[in-house]
């Protein structure tokens, strides 16, 4: 008799789990849901990854020669250009947010004046168009855009990935390179790399 009860119960449980229709999605607020921003939702870049990579790059930049150069000048104008996506993930919007984060960081901590590309829509569109349809920009091209913006220095960068899959696992390693270029000389005055890894296991 016991075995039949168990069978009935097992059958019901199996049926319920197999149907799999019980989950109902609901909207939540980050401030009401502890840890919501901490959980990785995929192998793309989220705010936490961007902040981490940016913080690492900016910390190195602060102790670099370029900060000393800026400190000696009278708040030189600096522009942040779009960061190239050389990855296997569509992270364009995250990289767009990164530009604003770099600008914010510079405004608050660096001895510079920030000239935002957002204020020059046609140039921004031209840079994005070229970024979407042409190969890598050289320092001279970047410097010429800087001139058009009225900047003395431009910050640009790119993100690469090493993307690997194995049965039951997918790992993406991101490397964010940031560099500062002198508009006058096209010289690269600063370059640094920060990395994060995302995976589905």
């Amino acid at each position, binding site marked *: *008799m016991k075995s*039949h*009860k168990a*069978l*009935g*119960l097992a*059958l*019901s449980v*199996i*049926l*319920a*789990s*197999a*149907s*799999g229709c019980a989950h109902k*999605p609901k909207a939540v607020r980050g401030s009401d849901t502890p840890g919501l921003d901490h959980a990785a939702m*995929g192998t793309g870049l989220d705010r936490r990854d961007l902040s981490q990579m940016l913080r690492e790059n900016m910390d190195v930049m602060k102790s670099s020669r370029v900060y000393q150069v800026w400190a000696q000048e009278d708040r030189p104008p600096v522009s942040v250009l779009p960061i*190239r*996506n*050389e*990855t*296997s*993930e*569509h992270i*364009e919007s995250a990289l767009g947010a990164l530009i604003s984060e770099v600008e914010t960081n510079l405004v608050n901590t660096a001895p510079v004046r920030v000239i935002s590309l957002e204020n020059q829509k046609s140039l921004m569109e031209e840079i994005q168009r070229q*970024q*979407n*349809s*042409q*190969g*890598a920009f050289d320092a001279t091209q970047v410097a010429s855009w800087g001139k058009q913006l009225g900047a003395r220095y431009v910050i640009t960068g790119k993100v690469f*990935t090493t*993307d*690997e*899959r*194995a*049965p*039951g*696992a*997918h790992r993406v390693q991101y490397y964010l390179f940031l560099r500062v270029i002198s508009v006058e000389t096209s010289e690269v005055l600063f370059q640094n790399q920060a990395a994060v890894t995302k995976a*589905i*296991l």
Partner: protein
Amino acid sequence: MADLGFLRGAAARRGALAALCTLWIAGCAGHAARTVEARKALDRHDPKKALELYNQELKVGSGSELPKQVSGDNALLLLDRSTILQQLDQFANSSRDLETADKQVEMLDFTRATSHEIGRYLFSDDTGPYKARPYEKLLVNTINMVNYLAQGNVAGAKVEARRLAVMQKYLSQTENDPTAVLLGPGSYLAGFAFERMGEYDEAIRYYDEALKATPYATLTEPVRWAAQYSGYSSPRIKPILEGGKASGSPKEEAEILVVLAYGCVPALRAERVPIGLALTGAALYLDGGQTQAARRLAGQGAISWVNYPSLERAPRAYGMPSVLVDGKPAPIDTVTPVDDLVRAAYERAKGPVMASAITRMIARGVVGAAAGTGVAKASNSGALGMLLAIGAQAALVAADTPDTRSWATLPARIAISRVRLPPGKHTIRAVAQGTVREQTVDIPKGGFAVVNLTELSQ
């Protein structure tokens, strides 16, 4: 008034509940049934109606909306919808659907809970997450490259090209069939994207992959051009380079690439196969005990049919598409038969799927008999027990929805036409499956235009 006293026993109540739940599950239609009307609309050259029907299934108002839940079978509906959106020139929406589905398919690949396995064992292959086939995974990136290139966004196409390469590498390590990881159009478009970005070493490697799959005649000039900036060589590249030098320069000219995606692959449909035929088809995948048990059940007359997914009848031949540029015929390069990939994958899976259906049938026989015995003991009624045994088996058979999930709106054929021209205005006229697309493009020196004609009628 019927005497329901037998339901007072706890075991009997659970048995009845199980039977009810099973009948409820049986009410869920398979993927083929959910999408059949939309596919008929595509055959009538009415992609707008097909989109509307998919939107209804996804419970959204338009092709620019994503459903609240993108996981589970909705991911497959999004894949289906993406090619229809591409046919309607809604490239950005098509990209969004493909990228959303791509992520979900990846998550589903890693999801295989025990409950799903039990469900598959007892009820139906339709229970549990959808597992995309290798060619479907590669076509996600291929079709999305077309979306990006048609919008002039080479950077976006490069992202898809990299994803394709990662997937190809992964599949080459995990799939037994090496031809399953080769997809000419995907590698061709990836090479094109890298060539347009001036990354010739990457470009020639992708072109080599494309040539490994398909002998594209239009790759001769691009390979010769890219080879000037790359030391890469292979048994396929070498004879091309030995055959002559690059003529002209893509930097001085304009280039038009037309992608023709036409026809529609055969979808899966639910079919009932006589048990004898099923046992023959699955003979290699069943052990002696399973075959004996199935024959015993068949002999008792308990089971006569096995529910099974089969491929729909679909055309094996399509009319050749055509492309005219400024009124002059442009050559159509090798046509890739995607429907052949679908048929080959189906043939490979046929035996194991049939064996799995027979195994379920045996399991149901055992469960039905056990449920009947339980009720018979609880109610002291052998007749009721037998009735429930038959009922439970019948309900479980009804619940066995064959797994008809597949990306059913893939084009049956993909062809490429590529020409170099002087910079300036050009008119392209592409025809496939009776549908005509005329587009005028203005291409600067060193520039390009990608024109897409997707026509998903069979």
